[in-house]
């Protein structure tokens, strides 16, 4: 079976004469050279990606690397200058306007960095927006929206207006609005970048929880290294409109393709990236009774960073039990597991 979402030789050149721009691109001119020699701005160059069904795929790069342009070409908010986008082997780039609208309604949804909630609609109406546009009957749309709000944990603000909510809550609405359409592909453009670090981690957890409940293919744009390593199945590193490397976080960290990628990932500190809950292995430690608080050892909290549980791990040979926010044991961490994660960032 071929991949869910395939980008094939995608290029984008901004400027008046796209053909000339593409020609310059074929001659292998770099982004800076193109800017100097002609009036063309290189968006992205010859991108090839295969994204599997159910994968959380992070495209990472600094601003200006072309990642936002790239993600917009998947649902054709920006039309590629060359190349094809295939969803389930169907060519999105060749679609008529009518077909494209259908794809946007049913197959690809999007979450925005600035939330982009409609100021004149209530929260629940915002969540139902995509369904409403797609012609879903009103009562049913509202019911589905209500459930989506529950899923992201903000049912209580259903009748508020967007400007009454904090940034983190607004983005939960954005997430629910995309999730509720049951699109198989979700595009997330710097979705959590505008949020405070603590809220950002919370939102990442919310996303991962959603992703566990129903596998969607997620293309996640980010400039945040920690975020990428934390949530990604695979990462693509972009620079100057090109992809420098694609792989799992561990692969990239262990074998960076070039100096740029190496420099990018040099500062990763896994001990500050992951929490005990992230790496806890299912099951229970000897002597503990599942789902209860009783255990031989005092459990560590699922929200503790790894660096905070290091002293505890040093004290004992035994596995550390991990308790969730209700205090129930959700799993354990043994030393091998801890060391492996600290050394190589391998979580999943």
């Amino acid at each position, binding site marked *: 079976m071929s991949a869910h979402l395939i980008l094939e030789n995608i290029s984008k050149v901004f400027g008046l004469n796209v053909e000339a721009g593409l020609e310059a691109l074929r001659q292998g001119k770099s982004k800076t050279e193109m800017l100097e020699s002609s009036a063309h701005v290189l968006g992205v160059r010859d991108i090839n990606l295969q994204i599997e069904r159910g994968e959380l795929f992070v495209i990472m790069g600094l601003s200006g690397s072309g990642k936002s342009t790239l993600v917009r070409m998947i649902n054709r*908010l920006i039309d590629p200058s060359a190349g094809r986008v295939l969803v389930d082997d169907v060519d999105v780039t060749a679609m008529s306007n009518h077909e494209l*609208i259908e794809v*946007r309604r049913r197959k690809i949804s999007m979450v925005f960095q600035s939330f982009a909630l409609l100021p004149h609609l209530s929260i629940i109406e915002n969540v139902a927006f995509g369904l409403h*546009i797609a012609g879903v009957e009103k009562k049913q749309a509202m019911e589905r929206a209500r459930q989506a709000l529950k899923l992201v944990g903000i049912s209580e603000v259903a009748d508020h207006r967007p400007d009454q909510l904090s940034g983190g809550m607004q983005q939960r609405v954005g997430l629910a609005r995309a999730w509720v359409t049951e699109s198989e592909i979700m595009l997330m453009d710097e979705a959590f970048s505008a949020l405070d670090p603590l809220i950002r981690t919370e939102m990442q957890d919310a996303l991962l929880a959603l992703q566990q409940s129903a596998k969607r293919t997620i293309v996640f744009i980010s400039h945040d290294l920690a975020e990428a390593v934390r949530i990604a199945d695979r990462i693509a590193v972009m620079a100057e409109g090109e992809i420098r490397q694609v792989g799992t976080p561990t692969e990239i960290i262990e074998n960076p393709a070039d100096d740029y990628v190496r420099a990018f990932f040099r500062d990763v500190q896994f001990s500050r990236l992951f929490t005990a809950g992230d790496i806890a292995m299912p099951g229970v430690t000897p002597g503990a009774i599942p789902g209860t608080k009783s255990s031989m050892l005092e459990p560590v909290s699922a929200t503790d960073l790894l660096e905070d549980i290091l002293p505890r791990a040093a004290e004992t040979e035994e596995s550390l039990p991990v308790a969730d926010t209700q205090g129930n044991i959700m799993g354990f961490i043994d030393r091998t597991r801890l060391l492996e994660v600290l050394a190589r960032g391998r979580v999943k």
Partner: protein
Amino acid sequence: MNFDIPIDQWVTNFVDFLLEYGQSFFDILSIALETLTFGIEDSLMFPPPWLLIILLTGLAAWRTNWRFAVFTLASLMLIIGMDLWQETVATLALVMAATLVSLSIGIPLGILAAYKDWFERIIRPVLDLMQTMPAFVYLIPAAMFFGLGQVPGVVATIIFSMPPVVRLTNLGIRQVPKDLLEAGLAFGCTSWQLLRKVQFPAARPSIMAGINQTIMLALSMVVIASMIGAGGLGDTVLRGIQRLDVGLGFEGGLGVVILAIILDRITQSFGNNGIRR
């Protein structure tokens, strides 16, 4: 240096030409506007004054606050006390008829201007002209095409009051944040849905400000249009001037001010994005 460009002659010739060949068109237009204006005036005059006063007070209480509702009640009672109710209603009917036509032409023009840059470039100087031309100038051709009475008054008022709603509709739609447009498109809006569900609601405060301005301009023009027999409160003011009757002129003026304040506050209240405060 001395040369003569006979613009006056050209305009006169053009108006003569229209009069000669466009008479039946103006007749139809005249009948339509007359029906509209009289229809509104009749339905405002039909209920007893106290009913209309209660309705307006209720509207003020619903849209603004109780203090303004009290003001509305008191000021409308004052109008009855000055024995200007009929004139006030006539003026209100003229304003409503002219505004209705202004908006139904102006808002689509504003949307078109927001979508098409070339159209904006054309319409901008035309709007400037419409707005800066002294209001009295419109009275002459209006009277020539439509005779004397309410209809030419409405026509002159339409032309004079349309620019703000065109401008502010255009501006409002152009200023809708790009991310909202992207969100609309990303969830599969057709261009019609994008306009109706995203652009128009997001531009609503700006458009409502335009509507408010249009109504205010219409009110000021309706008063001037009394010079060609449009009637209403303007007539009272005009009689005050002709007879050098300061008291009468002041009463008419006061009526206009009261009407302006009530219309202004109530239409403004629709501008704050549908959120009642």
